[in-house]
């Protein structure tokens, strides 16, 4: 099994380079595996194989400090040659573990609250298979089954021709993402109406593969607003009933869509109402971000490498802004996307003609 050859720790140092401690960490390798699987799918592996791939994950030793220090990891499918398919992952993949290690050292009195520190991951050969030992003793036999995700054969060129790139412009991620303006309009209305509370929902759509370029891309087709949530100004809980309702909505549509991500709103106009509009424009909250809770949700429910998280910022100084986040080399990062469909003014006119304009 991959990555069991080593145990990992975070070496925390003071700014002058003196050592504070090495804190052992358990690493969640699933985002690395999912990224390798997405790349394999992009190379043309059939989905039933690609989404089930096991990986080999090895430390990439630090060039100047050498072992046991790491500058990252290298991973590749267990059944493909390393030389052709190995992918690099930065040591920043362990940033959250480093943050946790520092919190522990503050609690232990070895670091001062607010003290700046340096960190690097370290790895050592693992003596025993601790992962297996830690698993609960459940007498059942488990077998993983390939998910029913079959990319549709669709030409990418015509999609790009009728799409508009988001503000972040071109993107070198292994897949383009297309979001209808209609969806953006709907989620911004829901976000605005929910202020002062957060709200959210699930993005649904299709994974496509361009038959000529063998390039994957993701198309959001619609969203399903989340009900049965518990929300306030800084918190949104998706309950088990939320997921039941979303799955029912997906089945009712019967368009073979899959859950491709989720969206939620930040009621920034509520958070920043004590500040002037000028200050609000400069406020970090006005820039789209995912909190640690948001990232945990994304990791828990949407670990597939193609999954995205859309954020709508309901701000007081302009119309709502949108940010899209997705996986890149095992980490969740802001990413570019393309919008599809009529401009908002045209949408409003269409809605008016249809008689559903409020």
């Amino acid at each position: 099994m991959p990555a069991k050859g080593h145990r990992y720790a975070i070496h925390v140092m003071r700014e002058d380079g003196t050592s504070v401690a090495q804190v052992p960490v358990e690493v969640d390798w699933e985002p690395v595996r999912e990224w390798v699987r997405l790349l394999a799918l992009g190379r043309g592996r059939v989905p039933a194989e690609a989404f089930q791939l096991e990986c080999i994950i090895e430390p990439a030793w630090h060039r100047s400090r050498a072992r046991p220090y790491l500058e990252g990891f290298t991973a590749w499918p267990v059944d493909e040659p390393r030389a052709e398919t190995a992918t690099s992952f930065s040591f920043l993949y362990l940033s959250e573990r480093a943050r946790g290690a520092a919190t522990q050292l503050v609690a232990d009195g070895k670091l001062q609250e607010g003290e700046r520190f340096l960190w690097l991951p370290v790895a050592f050969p693992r003596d025993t298979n601790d992962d297996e030992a830690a698993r609960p003793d459940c007498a059942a036999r488990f077998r993983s089954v390939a998910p029913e995700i079959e990319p549709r054969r669709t030409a990418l060129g015509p999609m790009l021709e009728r799409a508009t790139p988001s503000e972040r412009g071109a993107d070198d991620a292994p897949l383009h993402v297309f979001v209808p303006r209609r969806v953006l309009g709907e989620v911004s209305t829901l976000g605005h109406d929910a202020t002062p509370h957060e709200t959210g929902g699930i993005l649904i759509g299709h994974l496509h593969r361009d038959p000529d370029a063998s390039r994957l891309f993701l198309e959001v087709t619609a969203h399903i607003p989340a009900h049965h949530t518990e929300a306030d100004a800084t918190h949104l809980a998706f309950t088990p009933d939320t997921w039941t309702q979303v799955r029912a909505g997906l089945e009712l549509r019967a368009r073979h869509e899959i859950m491709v991500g989720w969206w939620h709103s930040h009621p920034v106009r509520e958070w920043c109402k004590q500040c002037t509009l000028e200050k609000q424009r400069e406020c970090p909250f006005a820039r789209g971000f995912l909190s640690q809770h948001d990232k945990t949700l994304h990791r828990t429910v949407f670990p597939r490498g193609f999954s995205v998280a859309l954020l709508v910022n309901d701000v007081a100084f302009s119309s709502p802004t949108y940010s899209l986040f997705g996986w890149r080399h095992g980490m969740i990062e802001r990413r570019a996307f393309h919008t599809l469909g009529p401009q908002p003014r045209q949408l409003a006119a269409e809605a008016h003609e249809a008689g559903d304009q409020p």
Partner: protein
Amino acid sequence: MRFADNDNIAMLEVTDVSGQKRVTVDDVHSAGTVGELIDGLLPEMQLTRNDVAGRPLTYHARLEREGRHLHASERIGDALRAGDRLVLQPNIDAGGVASG
């Protein structure tokens, strides 16, 4: 049908909420509880156990045949039949300005 304590249940199918992580489970000991089954499923399905604060995430198993969430304390032999489909559904938070 109620399974005796020493019976095993054949072939359950379990998915995550997205339907994109699926496992089949065989030889499930009927004397065990749903909570124990969920504990065994989480590592198999690579689902996260804890939230950002290290608190355990709560997962509920929805039994599709009956359209209800099972209680963690329910005995597997009483609640499940061979061929049943379960969906593991987390109670999970988004949001959190301070940590953003």
